């Protein structure tokens, strides 16, 4: 098979993919995620640069220059990971799916916090995940992965020193 035939087949494959519902779900999700993450990155940049004492023209140039790599980085990693969790068939066979996160929390947090916060989240994660797989609800299982990944990260944030500091300040403010 020569190069042109290969190219032709890959083009045919692309057209074949483009006619499936899965392809359009993938595309719409990707566009939504890219737009939302880019706008988050833009807002953060604007928030930081607006606080500086610079002329409006220089602020504009800085914003433009900073937004491109920042939006790319946020989009590149967050969007890619969410899409991977949602669409990868390989992940569905991985057991346990949260082992990497548990490994990180085991390294960063005390044994008590690991036992009382992160292990129960992981237990619930597996409970819901395998229940969905058992019922053959593949999309629900994928959604559970996204939801519990965010729950895990939220718990990590809350138990981090910054989270504790914010809680302490909010208590003082009350």
């Amino acid at each position, binding site marked *: 098979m020569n190069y042109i035939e290969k190219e032709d087949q890959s083009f045919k494959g692309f057209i074949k993919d483009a006619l499936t519902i899965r392809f359009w779900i993938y595309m719409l999700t990707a566009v939504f995620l890219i737009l939302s993450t880019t706008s988050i990155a833009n807002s953060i940049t604007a928030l930081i640069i607006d606080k500086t004492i610079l002329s409006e023209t220089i602020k504009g140039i800085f914003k433009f220059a900073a937004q491109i790599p920042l939006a790319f980085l946020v989009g590149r990693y967050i969007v890619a990971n969410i899409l991977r969790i949602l669409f990868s068939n390989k992940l569905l066979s991985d057991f346990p799916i949260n082992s990497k996160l548990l490994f990180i929390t085991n390294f960063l947090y005390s044994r008590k916090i690991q036992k009382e916060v992160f292990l*129960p989240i992981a*237990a*619930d994660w*597996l*409970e819901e995940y395998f229940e969905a797989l058992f019922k053959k609800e593949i999309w629900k299982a994928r959604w559970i992965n996204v939801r519990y990944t965010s729950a895990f990260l939220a718990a990590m944030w809350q138990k981090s020193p910054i989270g504790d500091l914010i809680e302490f300040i909010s208590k003082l403010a009350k």
Partner: protein
Amino acid sequence: MNDSKNNEFPKLSRKEFLVLGMLIGRGEMFGLEMVEASEGELKRGTIYVTLQRMGDKGYIESREEPRSMPEIGIPRRKYWATGLGERVYHTSVKAHEIFNSDFAWGGVN
């Protein structure tokens, strides 16, 4: 009993109040059961942080619940309210009742 720590009026956050209410009303529960029973008020990402803090304050206790034989995986934790937790909850309910009653408004006026 006269030291200031023991006499300090216990403050319950909205989430803690909700959790204690469920544990006192329904008995022992898993974290996920509380999330589902709360109808959106408790989140999967925050429930165990709240439960851990409540455990540190002595309002609740927990134990690992071993899984029944065909099931494998990480054991889940079951929670229940302690005597102190029940006391704090009922005190909080009474305080709310008094605050919302005519007696409290009469006192102000």
